[in-house]
């Protein structure tokens, strides 16, 4: 029972930040039809930016609790600074191309951003452990858990609900939905599709950077952090179904639990358990759990 609880808490904690990152990935795919390999690089940018800002905050003698706000601001700054540059300055020239070719375009972006990140922050690791201790430890049963891990679960729920509300209950969300269904008709109705693309991409980047910023206190921020995150967030959205918020949530929970199960019961399977689950889901539900099967066109 204790082991099951530990697996559940570990799995949910891992799923929480992964959900935030995957939500951005699935949003960008849903609107722009781009499976963005560079999403992991924006996650890394968020982590680096948070590490720098929190270090500066700590140095200035500000209250440690304000570091959470600093991490949020770092993610917003990453989105505001990089989204127009990458979407308007680069991606828009490739719209309408084959989706696999677009994956390659984002692969090129990923390669470039790896070096740009190294040029800005260098090759040495950054540590920002202060926020991790903010919530202390919380006892559940006989086991003690780090409060920050549970805070991330709450953050993921809040972010997920906010995105769902934004897309389903606001005028802006309805505009985005119209663009998803038909950019041409939306454009003929007076919607500025290019602006919707840019804002959606910026929100996607913000979510990646937010995931990176709030995991920064749990990891050593160093070159290469983006590489692992890319494929694992791909697994989440593929399991859930591309373009689906509910799918991203369920996908993240499945991935989180699969990994936690492997770590606690069969450590040798930790590295591939997630991909095994992804392969199994694709075998039985080729378009993911929350995606309707599309008819083939003649």
């Amino acid at each position, binding site marked *: 029972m204790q082991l099951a609880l530990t697996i559940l808490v570990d799995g949910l904690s891992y799923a929480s930040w992964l959900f935030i990152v995957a939500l951005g990935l699935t949003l960008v795919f849903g609107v722009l039809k781009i*499976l963005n*390999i560079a999403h992991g690089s924006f996650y890394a940018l968020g982590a680096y930016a948070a590490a720098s800002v929190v270090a500066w905050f700590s140095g200035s003698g500000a209250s440690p609790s304000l570091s959470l706000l600093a991490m949020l601001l770092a993610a917003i700054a990453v989105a505001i600074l990089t989204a127009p540059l990458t979407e308007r300055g*680069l991606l828009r*020239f*490739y719209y309408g*191309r084959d*989706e*696999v*070719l677009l*994956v*390659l*375009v984002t*692969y*090129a*972006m*990923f*390669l*470039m951003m*790896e*070096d*740009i990140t*190294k*040029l800005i922050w260098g090759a040495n690791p950054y540590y920002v452990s202060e926020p991790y201790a903010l919530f202390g430890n919380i006892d559940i049963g006989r086991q003690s858990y780090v409060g920050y891990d549970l805070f991330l679960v709450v953050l993921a729920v809040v972010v997920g609900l906010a995105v769902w509300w934004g897309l389903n209950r606001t005028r802006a969300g309805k505009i985005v939905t119209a663009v998803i269904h038909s950019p041409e008709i939306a454009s003929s109705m007076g919607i500025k599709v290019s602006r919707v693309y840019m804002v959606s991409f910026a929100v996607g980047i913000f979510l990646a950077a937010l995931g990176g910023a709030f995991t920064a206190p749990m990891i050593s921020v160093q070159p290469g952090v983006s*590489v692992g995150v*890319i*494929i694992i967030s*791909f*697994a989440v959205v*593929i399991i859930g179904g*591309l373009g689906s918020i509910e799918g991203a949530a369920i996908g993240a929970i499945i991935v989180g639990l699969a990994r936690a199960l492997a770590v606690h019961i069969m450590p*040798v*399977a*930790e*590295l*591939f*358990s997630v*991909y*095994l689950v*992804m*392969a199994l889901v*694709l*075998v039985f539900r*080729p*378009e993911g759990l929350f995606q309707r099967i599309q008819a*083939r*066109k*003649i």
Partner: protein
Amino acid sequence: MIKLLITALLVFLAALAAGAFVPRWLQFMLTMALANGLVSLGIVFLMRGGVVAFGQGLMSAIGGYTAALVFNMLGWQDAILLPLLGGLMACLITAPFAPLLAGYRGIFFSMLTLAMSMVGYGILVKTDSLGGSDGFNMGRVTLFGQTLADQQVSFTVYAVTLFFAVASSLFARIYFSSTRGLITQAIKDNELRVEYMGGSVSRSMAINFWLASFLGGLGGALAVMALGHIEPNFSYWTASGEFVFVAILAGTQSVVAIMLSSVVLEVVRSFSSSYFPNTWQLALGLFLLLVIRFLPQGLGSLRPGKKDAS
């Protein structure tokens, strides 16, 4: 056909002669480029049917591990035999998945192959008997039972790799123009119509997958023979990304362009890592973006004369 065979023979002899006079570092670079080009050639077999395999690194790793294991454990050291065994093993291990994968299209095919390669990577990293994340070394190959001197090994591996590259390119050129090859091209345009006309889409795609697996294993084994070392990173997604990179760079219109693209990638990588050690990925990414933007059909589309012939 005769003209094609003579051209292939002339290309082989000319490249062999050129290889004998170039410095060893360039010989090694060309060997790696041709070995990796073989893996990318496999991707082109699938790309012509409208799908892109993002997990060819797994085939390359299977070929590489097979060659190195056979060398170390069975003592079979022949430079011709080892790549063939690597290709066959990749084909055998992935054969059961071919009928399943034949039903997938678009990004889902790419992601399923990617998942398979990452499962392979995870297994290889955790298998201590295969050296874990460090991998293991293999020794110097022989040719037809002859032990090779130090200065001969590099050229021999280059010659064998060149032979397999030319032979596979020739096979690909003939296959692409055959009925099966043309069916594959038709599948990309409209697979339902292919079925209505009596073609088997799933069988064609499965055969393409087997061929791609064989070429992946072949290329992986040749790369390991040149490097003298194998490790799980062969199966990591970034390795697969590079193979796709070459396939996209080349396009599907010319088999020669695939080998040339692989050489171009190696040259760009080698020179940018030598002259811009901190920004070589930046240069590589920029290069890829420019190719996709201005040569959407790949380097193969630059070929003068008829289009879409091969």
